[in-house]
C-alpha cells in the first residue's frame, strides 16, 4: 500500500463506503435467511474495494452500469440505504418503486444507470453513454462493471471495437472473482482477458481488486485521461466473492473449497487491509474505526426496519411506467 497522502479524508471515506457495502450485504443476507426478502439476491461481500476504489474516482455526472451483483456499485456511487432496502423488499419508496428489485436497482441521481440481470447486458449501454458524452461534448466518463463470466458474451467485443475506433470515454471494469456461477474462470475464458482488450488497441491493466488504494489510484489516472479523449480503457480487477453465487447457494464444496474461501477472507480482505493501513499510518485509531463501524451498522439496521414497515406500491401502479409520457 502507498504512503498516506495528506488528504486523509479520502481514505476514511473509502473505508466507510466499504464497510457500508458489507453492512448492507449482511443485512440483505439476513433478510433472505429470515424469509423476509422476496426472491434471491447476489452478494457483493469481498469485492468492496473494486466498487469503492472506482466510484471514489468518479463524480455524480460520471455514469456507471452495474450487474446482477450490483448492491456494491450502487452504494459506492452514493445511494442511500433506505431506498435500497425498500427496493429489495419491493416497497413503494424503493429506488424503482419496487418494480426492479435487487437485480435492477438504478439510481439516476448519482449516475447509476442500473443493475442488469442479463450477463453482459449493460456493455452496449455503457458504451452508448460514452458515445453520447463524446457527441454532446460533455467530459463525463462511463464505467462499465461486469464479471469475468460476461467476457464470454460477443456484445463485449462489438462495443469495444467501436469504443476503440471512436476513442470513447468508457472504462471497462472486469471484476474477476474467479467464478461465474458454479464454474471456474479458467474453464470459461481462453487466453488472457486483458489481451482481448489489447487486441483492439485498448490500454488494459490488471490490478489487485482487494487493494482499494491501488484500484483508486489507477482509476483516477484513467478517468482523467478518458476525460481528455484518450479512452477507452480496460481494467481487470482480481477479486473474490465471499458468499455463494446467490444467497441460496449454500453448499459450494463441489465447485470451490472452504480453505480457498477462508484464505481470501482472512488474508486478503479489503476492509481489514485498509483498516490496518489507517491505524498504522495514524489516520484513525482503533476506537475511531470501531465507532464508525457501529454507526454504520446502526444506520443499516434502521434502514432495514424502515423498509420492513414501509408500504407496498398501490396496485394501480402496475401498468404505470410502461411508456414514458
Amino acid at each position, binding site marked *: 500500500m502507498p504512503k498516506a497522502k495528506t488528504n486523509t479524508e479520502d481514505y476514511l471515506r473509502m473505508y466507510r463506503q466499504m464497510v457500508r457495502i458489507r453492512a448492507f450485504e449482511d443485512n440483505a443476507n439476513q433478510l433472505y435467511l429470515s424469509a423476509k426478502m422476496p426472491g434471491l439476491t447476489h452478494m457483493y461481500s469481498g469485492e468492496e474495494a473494486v466498487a469503492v476504489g472506482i466510484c471514489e474516482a468518479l463524480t455524480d455526472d460520471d455514469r456507471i452500469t452495474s450487474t446482477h451483483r450490483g448492491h456494491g456499485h450502487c452504494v459506492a456511487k452514493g445511494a442511500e440505504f433506505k431506498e435500497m432496502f425498500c427496493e429489495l423488499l419491493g416497497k413503494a419508496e424503493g429506488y424503482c418503486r419496487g418494480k*426492479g428489485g435487487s437485480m435492477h436497482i438504478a439510481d439516476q441521481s448519482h449516475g447509476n444507470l442500473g443493475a442488469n440481470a442479463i*450477463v453482459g447486458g449493460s456493455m452496449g449501454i455503457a458504451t452508448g453513454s460514452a458515445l453520447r458524452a463524446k457527441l454532446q461534448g460533455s467530459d463525463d466518463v462511463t464505467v462499465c462493471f461486469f464479471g469475468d463470466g460476461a467476457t464470454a458474451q460477443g456484445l463485449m467485443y462489438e462495443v469495444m471495437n467501436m469504443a476503440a475506433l471512436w476513442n470513447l470515454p468508457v472504462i471497462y471494469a472486469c471484476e474477476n472473482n474467479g467464478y461465474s456461477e458454479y464454474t471456474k474462470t479458467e474453464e470459461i475464458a481462453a487466453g488472457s482477458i486483458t489481451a482481448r482488450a489489447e487486441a483492439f488497441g485498448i490500454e488494459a491493466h490488471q490490478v489487485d481488486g482487494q487493494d482499494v488504494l491501488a484500484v483508486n489510484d489507477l482509476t483516477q489516472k484513467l478517468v482523467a485521461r478518458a476525460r481528455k479523449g484518450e479512452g477507452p480503457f480496460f481494467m481487470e480487477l482480481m477479486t473474490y466473492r465471499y458468499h455463494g453465487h446467490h444467497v441460496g447457494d449454500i453448499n459450494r464444496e463441489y465447485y470451490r473449497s472452504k480453505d480457498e474461501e477462508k484464505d481470501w477472507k482472512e488474508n486478503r480482505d479489503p476492509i481489514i487491509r485498509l483498516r490496518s493501513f489507517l491505524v498504522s499510518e495514524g489516520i484513525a485509531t482503533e476506537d475511531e474505526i470501531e465507532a464508525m463501524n457501529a454507526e454504520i451498522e446502526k444506520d443499516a439496521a434502521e434502514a432495514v426496519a424502515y423498509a420492513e414497515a414501509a408500504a407496498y406500491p398501490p*396496485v394501480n401502479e402496475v401498468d404505470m411506467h410502461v411508456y414514458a409520457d
Partner: protein
Amino acid sequence: MRNITLSQAVNEALAEEMRRDPKVFIIGEDVAEAGTPFKVLSGLVEEFGTDRVIDTPIAEPGFMGMAVGAAMTGARPVVDLMFGDFIFLIMDQLCNQAAKTHYMSGGKLTVPLVLRTNLGATRRSAAQHSQSLQALVAHIPGLKVAMPSSAYEAKGLMKTAIRDNNPVVIFEDKLMYQDKAPVPEEEYLIPFGEANVKREGSDITLIATSSMVQVAEKAAETLATEGISAEVIDPRTIVPLDEKTLLDSVRKTSRAIVIDEGHQSYGVTAEIASRLNEKAFYHLDAPVLRMGAMDVPVPFSPALEDITVPTPERVVENARKLCAGELIHAA
C-alpha cells in the same frame, strides 16, 4: 404408478434418449456438474461424461449457433437455455438460422435440435427472469413449440422433441420443477399436435397451456360447486396445434376462455381465440375470452407481480359472467 417431479421427468427423458441415441448431447451453462441452477440435469454428466453434457461459457448466441451447425451435420443437440428470457439473445440463430434452413434448402438440410427453456412469473425474479415468451417463437414458421403442464407431459413431450427432425422449443414452468405427478415406469411418447382433455364438461371450455392448466383445473372445480360444468383442455403443443379437439369442445359447450401466461396482446391466447371464432363462430353463445399476462414488464414487487397473471379466482369470475350472458371487457 409412481409419482415423480417434473424435474426428474425431464432428467429421465434425456437420459433415456441419450442411452438410445449416441448422437444426442446436451449443451448449455452449468449443465454438467452443477446440473443447472434448478438441478434438473443432476447426474447426467456422471453417466454420459463431459463430451455429451457440455458446459459452456456465458455465450448464448454462440452455443445456440453451434447447436444449429451440429444439428445440420448429423448430431441431435439439446440446448439448455437457463431462462426463457434469454431467448432474446439467441433470436437470430433460432429464428433466422434454425427455423428456416430446412425450407431454404428445399428440404435438403434438417436441424433436429431441442431448445429446453422455461417460462413463468410469480417467482419474484423481476422483468428479465420471468417472461413467458412462447408466442414469439410460435410466430416463426419452422419451429415447433411444446408446453408441458405436468411431469407426465414433460417426459413424453421431451422424448418426442428429441426424435423430431425439426427445431423444437420446450418451455417448462419453473415453478413446477418440484411438482409431482404419476409417470409410468415403462417408455411412452406423447405425439405433437394432440391436445389432452383434462376434464370433461358441457357449459364452457377452458383452454389452458403449461402453468395455466392448474389454474384452469382449480377454476373448474370451483365452477362445478356453482353448477357450471367446465371442460379443461391442454393443447400440449401450440405448434402444431390440435385444432380439432379444441373446436369439437367449443362446438359442444358454446363458450370458451383461453388462458396462457404470455402477454395477452398479440399472444397465444389471441391466436387460439381467433381460430375458434373463425371456425366455430355459429356455435358460440358468447365471445371467446382471452386471459394472458398483463401487458406490462413483470414487476418485482410481490404486491404488483401477483396481479399480472391469471388466477383461478379471475377465471371463475369470467366464466361465471360468460355463462350468465354478461358482457366482459377482457380481464
